[in-house]
């Protein structure tokens, strides 16, 4: 590989890494025809993991990190002194195809700094996607970052080539956006999300291709003073209004060449992880956002125990729950029982009576679950009312990062 291209790749991959999303899921099963290249699988594939534990699934790069915007949290803002580079359309196409042929990646995740104008930038990104699909018969995954300030017809076109579209909200409140991202505007971001949502739904009904893996977004955690409860309220709204496939949370992490108006400290990784857990409770466990907010402390999630356990500890009167008789909805609320384990329990108990050792085979979270459930041969008795239950169930602090 050409030396110059390698150098650009380093700069433009480094510039893209603060976007947490790298998933290649949701495009369904697609296969290349005889001359084409590539396929997609339902859940996507992670081809490598970096020492931060994150998955490398797509070639995640910026077309350029030159940018006219000046978002304080962003390493690529126009006032930063980072090294800049710009790929040509053909360079991105070559990298994608050659990496793909060697099975390094599932496809491309292309984003860009804003150069010249939002429309011009979006058009350049579309050229890459079009060239991959049309000239190279590329059937692998393409995730395109949508620029909400671009003209609406460019968003219409993006969905025709991409498997997934995303716009990062980055900051959960209008106030923070104004302060930290002066060129961005919450209303136009949500307008573009609404447009994509509508088109994705229609295309699904009409069986046409328009971003079949839906849309996602990201919020930065820890760059402003928004509480967890408000972050989750925003997520609930984004899931509800625009059918987001995922809301990613990205712990604000120190960047080279950082702005003077932002905190320079280690990223709140545990907070990020608790937000993901709470997010799952909203999507797969039937929790309402206000239930989670109520079991938090002044809007902040408990960092020592997971949010489901935090909720259960504050609602002990609803437990213990009998695994042989309780409704599925209530079993989902038992700490330590995942949605899959609950489904297996509910199916199995139609044929047999479950004892504690049966439950143990279906979940790895039995220690947390035990005080909250009843099995044929087991009752927690007073264990549930123990004063120090929370302390007993705190996970051993894990070395989450060098700073933990």
């Amino acid at each position: 590989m050409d030396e110059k291209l390698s150098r650009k790749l380093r700069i433009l991959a480094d510039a893209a890494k603060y976007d947490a999303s790298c998933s290649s899921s949701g495009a369904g099963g697609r296969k290349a025809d005889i001359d084409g290249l590539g396929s997609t699988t339902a859940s996507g594939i992670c081809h490598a993991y970096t020492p931060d534990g994150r998955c490398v699934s797509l070639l995640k790069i910026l077309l350029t990190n030159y940018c006219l915007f000046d978002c304080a949290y962003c390493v690529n803002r126009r006032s930063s002194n980072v090294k800049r580079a710009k790929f040509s359309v053909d360079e991105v196409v070559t990298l994608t195809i050659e990496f793909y042929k060697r099975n390094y990646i599932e496809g491309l995740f292309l984003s860009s700094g804003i150069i010249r104008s939002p429309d011009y930038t979006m058009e350049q990104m579309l050229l890459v996607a079009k060239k991959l699909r049309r000239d190279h018969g590329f059937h692998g995954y393409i995730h395109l970052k949508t620029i909400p300030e671009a003209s609406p017809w460019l968003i219409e076109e993006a969905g025709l080539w991409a498997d997934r579209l995303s716009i990062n909200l980055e900051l959960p409140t209008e106030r923070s956006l104004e302060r930290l991202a002066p060129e961005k505007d919450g209303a136009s971001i949500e307008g573009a999300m609404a447009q994509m949502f509508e088109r994705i739904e229609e295309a699904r009904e009409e069986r046409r291709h328009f971003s079949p893996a839906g849309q996602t977004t990201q919020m930065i955690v820890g760059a402003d003073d928004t509480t967890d409860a408000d972050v989750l309220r925003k997520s609930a709204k984004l899931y509800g209004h625009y059918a987001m496939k995922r809301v990613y949370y990205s712990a604000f992490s120190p960047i080279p060449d950082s702005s003077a108006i932002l905190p320079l400290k280690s990223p709140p990784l545990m907070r990020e992880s608790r937000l993901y857990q709470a997010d799952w409770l909203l999507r797969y466990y039937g929790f309402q956002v206000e239930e989670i907010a109520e079991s938090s402390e002044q809007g902040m999630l408990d960092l020592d125990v997971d949010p489901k356990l935090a909720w259960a500890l504050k609602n002990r009167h609803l437990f213990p729950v009998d695994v042989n008789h309780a409704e599925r909805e209530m079993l989902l609320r038992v700490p330590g029982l995942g949605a899959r384990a609950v489904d297996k329990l509910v199916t199995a108990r139609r044929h047999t009576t479950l004892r504690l050792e049966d439950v143990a085979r279906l979940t790895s979270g039995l220690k947390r679950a035990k005080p909250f459930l009843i099995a044929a041969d087991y009752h927690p008795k007073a264990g549930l009312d123990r004063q120090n239950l929370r302390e007993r169930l705190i996970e051993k602090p894990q070395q989450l990062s060098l700073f933990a």
Partner: protein
Amino acid sequence: MSLHRITLKNGADLDGFRRAVRWLMAEELAPQHVVWSLDEAPSLFGDDEFHDAPPVSLPRSVARLIELGVCHSDSERYALLYQLIWRVLNGERDLLEIASDPLVHRIDMMARAVRRDLHKMYAFVRFRRMQGELERFAAWFEPDHFILEAAAPFFIDRFRSLDWTILTPIGSMRWDRRDLTFGPPAQREDAPDEDSFEEGWRGYYESVFNPARVNPNAMRAEMPKKYWRNLPETASIPGLIQTASQRVDAMIEQEATMPSKRTPERALEAMWDQEPKTLDELNAIIAKAGPLVPGATQAVFGEGPKHADIVFVGEQPGDQEDLQGKPFVGPAGKLLAKAMQEVGIDRSKAYLTNAVKHFKFEQRGHRRIHAKPTNGEVKHYRPWLMKELELVRPKLVVALGATALLALTGKSTPISRSRGHAQFGPYRGYITVHPSYLLRLPDEATKREAYEAFLADLRRIHDLAEADPDTGELPLAAE
């Protein structure tokens, strides 16, 4: 009762197992009377000869579990799977639903391990280009279980147009873009030892790592060390971990830097000046985008004076419009022209356009039959129509038919219920039928009646366009 010994081929001998099960079930031999053994040398029959017997029918979920289970490296796999089959066929048909059953649980875990092994193979195979002029790739991979055959479809679907070989200690396979052939076990040395893109890939891998989030345990959970020796990028791992804290400290200690360049005021101003400012600029954008549904000859743009009083919006260009590149030149367009003339609307002073700018059709013999655009297609074109109206700035916008109405309002509404006065965003509007509707009516009497109603609409449209834009007051003698 004596023990029966069944010997199967080494590896994932699904066919041998299937035949053995048929015979064992036909003979009603319970699991405790069967000993399973594996033979290095492939032999079709074991110590106890078994014969062809009729197939046994198993629930699909059991069959699928067996396909995965036979791939497992555990030498007990056949014995466990036969126990499962025996129980399923002897009164416990729903056995798999009891995931807490010790046998089911154990086989589930085995299937899970095989699935994970497959998934890791899909993920961690690294092809290297072989020497030579032709583009051929090869990879060395070490699976934990006997998954070569099971993994083949994935690689064929993905790399159908490439010539590739995967070499493993349990066998090899080659796809030559047409056929798949399995070969003997191979050695690492049989695969190429470098590739010109690996350095670039390593550079990429190093760059996406965020030192402020270092968490090697999470990495190792998903990418266990046993895979590292065959992954070129893992050579970078020790260095990345070692320097991480240093890099982060440096970032935190570094004072916020002052921008070295001046704010690019002029570029910032120009950045927002991106919208098309004339109809020609807009039309160039539409032309460049091409038809949403393939087939149209060309885009058919709106036509008429720049600041026309009335904009008529139709559905989409037809056969004639597509060939000539002009709107409303086919039969429906001619009827519209005639009606306009009758009520005194000067066609050359009106602006005529369509909701959808490309012809969509079904080919029937030599004829191209108009096909109605779907809601999603109409909305795909909608932002352009909105921009078009913004550039023409008419006094009145007329929706001809339901498609135009959908394009103007974003919602589907039947014409019969909304015909007449309307408001389309900032524009005063009027809703009537599309002239092609008049052409489609079956008998003369209805046709005449509908045409009269259409003329009445056009008269009102004519009056509205003359009305005072602020007060809405019609000129004398109207209505």
